């Protein structure tokens, strides 16, 4: 039986077909004040009035805000992991797992350029791949 790739949550990202176009994160933006959000928030937290948010896509480029190498994991997840905050270009700060480099203090530098990648984060109970956005050092 073929393993399926299943998004860990719907509505967060669009995965590009292999070889064509780009993957995107789906967030939203306040028409009034310009605040951006990922994941989408129904109300602008700065304006706090209804109906100012509209959907927007983020390309998934950003910089490393902070990170931690974690020697513990929830069931099914890799240990150690790198957990980080990314400052998204033209977007908000967001939490993400980091992939594409060794989980050692030397492999990351605060402020370095990062790029989003859609990849497996763990297998589910039926052996399917649960996929989500992650970030890796840009160009790697």
């Amino acid at each position, binding site marked *: 039986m073929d393993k399926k790739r299943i998004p*860990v949550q719907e509505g967060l990202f669009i995965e590009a077909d292999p070889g064509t176009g780009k993957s995107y994160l789906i967030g939203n933006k306040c028409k009034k004040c310009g605040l951006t959000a990922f994941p989408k928030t129904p109300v602008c937290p*700065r304006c706090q009035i209804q109906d100012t948010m509209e959907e927007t896509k983020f390309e998934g480029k950003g910089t490393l805000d902070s990170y931690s190498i974690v*020697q*513990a994991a929830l*069931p099914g997840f890799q240990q150690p992991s790198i*957990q980080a905050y990314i400052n998204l270009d033209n977007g908000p700060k967001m*939490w993400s797992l980091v992939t594409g480099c060794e989980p050692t*203090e030397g492999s990351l530098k605060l402020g370095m350029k990062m790029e989003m990648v859609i990849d497996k984060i763990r297998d589910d109970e039926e052996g399917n791949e649960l996929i*989500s956005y992650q970030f890796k050092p840009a160009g790697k």
Partner: protein
Amino acid sequence: MRDVSIIGVGMTRFGKFEDRDMKDLGREAVWTALNDAGVGIKDIQVAYVANAVGQQLTELKGTIGQHVLTSAGIFGIPVINVENACTGGSTSLRGAYLEVASGNADVALAVGVEKLFCGDSAKSAQTMAAGTIYAKFGFMFVALYALQLKKWMAASGATKLHFAKVAAKNKYNGSLNPYAQFQKAMTVEQILESRVVAEPLTQFMCSTMADGAAAAIVCSSDIAKKISQKYPIQIAACELVSGTYNIPGEEHEEITTRAALKAYEKAGIGPEDVQVVEVHDAMSPAELRMYEELHLCKPGEAGMMIDEGHTTLTGRIPVNPSGGLAAKGHPISATGLAQVYEVVTQMRGEAGKRQVTNNPKVGLVENAGGWTMDDNAACAVTILKK
């Protein structure tokens, strides 16, 4: 609003109690508080009962307060079941306080009870982690703490050695506390050399799972003067807030500071007046941050506070004389009321071997928990005075 005082407190020891259920734990805490106050079961007019994960880990799937209280002989009265993650205990106290302050009741009971050991430790761990909707992405609280601490260390000048010193102070305090889960002192070296969980956090800086319950009985200060067996401790403020959106590039006031400033204002008491403190140190280094966020010292002075011993049992302003969460244990919803238990006990001078020596007239409890919008879901600061 009327003045409100605590006239009775009770708690179970915290720990792993495989053959005790929430009814059993809750009953012990409630009865101990009743006996401490010298009031009877029928004197309680309204009760708030906090629990966080009982529905997921025990056979009680709802109205947990009624189940626990009827097993303690209390029924018929209004029972309000509250949940606020790790801030449940304080939320329960706030409810009881408001009932009495408003004149809606004369005597009210606040309980926090939690059962985390369920015979399946993987299930317990999964349940604890699932408190955030990001768990399915692999998000771990310990990583969050580590991320924040690394930034804070850069800003405040605090070091990993400071973190270990705080943890060692609290392990020592816990070693003197008969209600603590871990009653074993540890050296700074032992703490630094324990397994790294997420740099800069090591194993012995982190709180673990526990079962337990705690309770407090409050009444109007006028009535307290007449009926209390012991010196009543007044609730000068009990302020609850929830998290705020953290907008990148904009100032974000810490949730603890927001709650504390509200409490200081309400109480008419400043941080300089506070003489004994319990803070919510799910990871020991959080205590250092609290020194600054509660304005117990100036920004950048947290490391000095621990270096100079100001927060030890014999210091100027003892913090976490109970041992704090990492030594005492952290049964989610019981924690806030156990903190209140500790501060009341210290202010009465009844803390035995761990008694602080500055004869405190003003105490403070900080109790935070949960996670929404990149901030704690809730935080409560309670100020007690005598």
